[in-house]
């Protein structure tokens, strides 16, 4: 018994001593389980309205980062102010991971519609990246609401009028014309996305 005790001590004490001075490991973000991802998709937390984005651009929010996920050619032709181009096909290229996986900026993916930008969100979210969002309706909806805001009737409530005025101002600030628009799109608005720290996925539940 004595020998085992001493043997144990000669192994454990040095190992514990090494561990006492070992560096604390910073973890890479953890992948989400499909179920967790489904829950987020179902609650549509990832969408940001054009109004919110336009507002932040005008305010010159230093922490806003628009990411155009279309091809470089399309990006050359037109892009939103301050946007960078990360084509969807190269989403996981090494050089972009620092932009996609971080906790300082709010990234907002956009494409012409929402298909590619949503795909970009799902793919990065699966890897546990946070602070990435999707521009609701993409550039098409952006054009309808911000670039060519629809003038509300005089009988509309005050917020509608206020929204129109904001959009008119925004479109001028952002370089669009104020043309009449034919259809009446539903005004969806989402709250401004908050900046969250990248935190870990859910811990395992346990206990007795």
């Amino acid at each position, binding site marked *: *018994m004595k020998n*085992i005790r001493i043997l*144990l001590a000669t192994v454990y004490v040095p190992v514990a001593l090494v561990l006492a001075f070992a560096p604390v490991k910073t973890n890479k973000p953890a992948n989400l389980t499909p179920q967790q991802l489904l829950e987020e998709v179902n609650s549509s937390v990832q969408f940001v309205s054009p109004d919110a984005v336009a507002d932040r651009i005008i305010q010159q929010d230093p922490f806003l980062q628009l990411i155009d996920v279309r091809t470089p050619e399309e990006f050359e032709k037109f892009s939103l102010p301050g946007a960078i181009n990360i084509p969807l096909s190269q989403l996981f290229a090494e050089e972009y991971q620092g932009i996609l996986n971080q906790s300082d900026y709010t990234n907002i993916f956009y494409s012409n519609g929402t298909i590619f930008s949503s795909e970009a969100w799902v793919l990065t979210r699966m890897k546990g990246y946070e602070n990435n969002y999707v521009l609701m309706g993409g550039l098409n909806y952006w054009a309808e609401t911000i670039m060519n805001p629809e003038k509300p009737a005089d009988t509309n409530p005050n917020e509608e009028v206020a929204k129109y005025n904001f959009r008119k101002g925004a479109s001028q600030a952002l370089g669009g014309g104020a043309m009449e628009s034919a259809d009446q799109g539903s005004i969806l608005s989402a709250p401004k996305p908050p900046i969250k720290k990248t935190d870990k996925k859910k*811990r*395992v*539940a*346990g*206990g*007795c």
Partner: protein
Amino acid sequence: MSESSVPEFRKTRYFNPYVGGVALGIVLLLAFYISGRGLGASGAIKSTIVAGIDKIAPKHAESTAFYTEYAESHPNGPMKNWLVFEMLGVLIGGFISGAIHGRLKLQVEHSPKITSKKRILFALLGGILFGLGSQLGRGCTSGSALTGMAVLSVGGFVSMMFIFGTAYALAYFARKLWI
């Protein structure tokens, strides 16, 4: 009183405790590696009670806060639970070890200074106290103290200190039961 001067548990061979400890530590580590949680025991009892109440007195279960809250947080039912499966394994593992080492025997183990009836009585009392305590303490020696110490949790150490501390404090008063 029997004349046996050597207690039964001295007459049989057990693992070296340090070896057993290392083995147990490795099993605990495996549990974390696989399922992200450590060992436990008392939780399985709670699961069984809840399942039993659901079966025997379902109306009572539906109208009592504890059981309804439990049902909400355990959508798969009380028995589909990590601890329940683990404890079933414990029964089998213990049995296998007992069988291999020739320790299978229906008996009441007690100090020669007390009767087996008295032992049974105190085992019952001890179990009741422990059962209640394990729920308040959110774990027993395996789940709270052992696992808790391995992850360095305050809850684990506090739990361990009070379990062992109280046992030591009461040891003098309970000495007739054992020595």
